[in-house]
């Protein structure tokens, strides 16, 4: 209906431009709520960590502090972006964009409900994996272009860490696609049809844990935030950034967290499906279930940050290479044998 209205209003334009306008409108319809979520996710983080540490968190701007993220954005917009001397100006300024773009572009294939998907492409699982793996360029380029040793150290740590955890992440997704028999995120959710014991977290429990831990590591969040490491390398890769350039890095980090939470929900926690397929639960629309589950998983990110101390660097590498990757390899075999050679085939599908 909205589509017809848009095409009617722009009927004086050539058809190609009409399609482009329609695509733009759909992108805006996803990105605007997403940016709102990111803004209030930063607020939620400060409030939740505040309450966990017996403080109240921000409570000055607006009623109960609810306008804090807007004030933060306004402040950062008005600040000067300082480019360090002998820094590579072009790369310095493009690095935040390189880190934000993949975090936003991955939402193109996100199945919010069974019909609310921007691009229902065939290999959407791979697409998401490819895009999340590109986020590291923002960090590396920022670290190199800043012409600063701290930033450079942060970039080096981040590159090594992300390459290590991406393998575990990829293998965890191999398990998902073996069970679902599809690379399409919508079909993966539809394969989990039923109540919460039909979702993939149960047959793929080790992979679910591995995926989420790798997700926390990929987004450079505590306890894996050695790329920032305030106590030893000041703020890591974004130490030289100020104003809006810094804010874009910040946005990218939070958008990535919400993305990982949403992907965990889609692949292991049944996406838009209600936890019990009975009366009061399936009255709630699927989009709302998706939002509730994503919020709960995103809450874990904040809980981790308030709870765990930062890992030592060599222990991060050990966990990634010597614990998570072997676990995924073993469980892929378990799934493969279980699905095709044992009577438990129903459990693994």
């Amino acid at each position: 209906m909205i589509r017809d209205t848009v095409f009617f209003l722009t009927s004086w334009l050539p058809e190609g431009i009409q399609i482009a306008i329609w695509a733009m409108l759909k992108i805006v319809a996803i990105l605007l709520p997403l940016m709102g979520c990111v803004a209030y996710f930063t607020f939620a983080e400060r409030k939740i960590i505040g309450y966990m540490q017996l403080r109240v968190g921000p409570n000055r701007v607006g009623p109960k502090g609810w306008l804090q993220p807007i004030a933060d954005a306004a402040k950062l917009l008005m600040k000067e972006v300082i480019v360090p001397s002998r820094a590579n100006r072009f790369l310095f300024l493009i690095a935040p964009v390189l880190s934000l773009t993949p975090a936003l572009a991955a939402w193109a294939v996100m199945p919010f409900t069974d019909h609310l998907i921007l691009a229902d492409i065939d290999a959407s699982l791979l697409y998401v994996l490819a895009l999340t793996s590109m986020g590291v360029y923002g960090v590396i380029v920022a670290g190199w272009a800043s012409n600063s040793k701290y930033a450079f150290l942060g970039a080096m740590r981040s590159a090594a860490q992300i390459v290590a955890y991406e393998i575990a992440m990829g293998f965890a997704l191999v398990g998902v696609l073996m069970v679902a028999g599809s690379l399409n995120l919508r079909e993966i959710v539809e394969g989990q049809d039923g109540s919460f014991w039909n979702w993939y977290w149960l047959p793929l429990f080790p992979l679910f844990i591995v995926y989420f831990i790798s997700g926390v590591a990929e987004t450079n969040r505590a306890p894996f935030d050695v790329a920032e490491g305030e106590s030893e390398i000041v703020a890591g890769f974004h130490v030289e950034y100020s104003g809006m350039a810094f804010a874009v890095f910040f946005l990218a980090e939070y958008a990535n967290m919400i993305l990982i939470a949403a992907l965990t929900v889609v692949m292991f926690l049944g996406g838009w499906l209600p936890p019990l397929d009975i009366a009061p639960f399936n009255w709630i629309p699927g989009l709302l279930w998706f939002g509730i589950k994503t919020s709960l998983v995103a809450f874990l990110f904040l809980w981790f940050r308030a709870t765990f101390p930062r890992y030592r660097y060599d222990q991060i590498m050990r966990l990634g290479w010597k614990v998570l990757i072997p676990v995924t390899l073993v469980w892929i075999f378990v799934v493969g044998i279980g699905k095709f050679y044992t009577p438990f085939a129903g459990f693994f599908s």
Partner: protein
Amino acid sequence: MTFVQFCFYLFSAILVFAAGMVVTIRNPVKSALFLVLAFFSAACIWITLEAEFLAIVLVLVYVGAVMVLFLFVVMMLDIDLAVMRAGFTRYLPVGSVIAVLLILEIALVMVSGFGSDSYQAPGAHPADYSNSKELGRLIYTVYVYPFEIAAVILLVAIVAAIALTMRRRPDSKYINPSEQIKVRREDRLRIVKMKSNPRAGAKAADGESS
């Protein structure tokens, strides 16, 4: 010109530009970043060929993993640009001969029956055609032995590379992590009971202050 053609020419232009910059730009880090751009544009062109699986895998493997490690190394090297450029004129004749040979070889192949006359352009597939499913079916049925042999060769290469580069340093202060985790308070901490003597301490403090 259709939209797909427009995309093809746009991505090809970016690809050729980026590939040119890879070899001409002086800074090795920027050169590696242009290589990333070249890979990405190539992936975009593959998508216009309806090879979305290969395109995404190209981005995932080469852009997401190989080039990250490449940049990792290139950034840490302190390359002296003057030394790198010194031999340019000396190597120019050899390089141009190789370039001409390559162009000749490609031209020979292209001219001798590679045009659209001898190979029909593949028709567009229906919307539900799954490129990845088709590829998986071919790899694991028709080409299963070449595929498995390639996998074994890669595994041998991994083992060889690790065996060649792994050196045990005798002076390394490495601690076994499992021993670290298993450590208990009793191993590290000894509580010593000492008889307290508050009067003597208080007297000494009084003496200093007075």
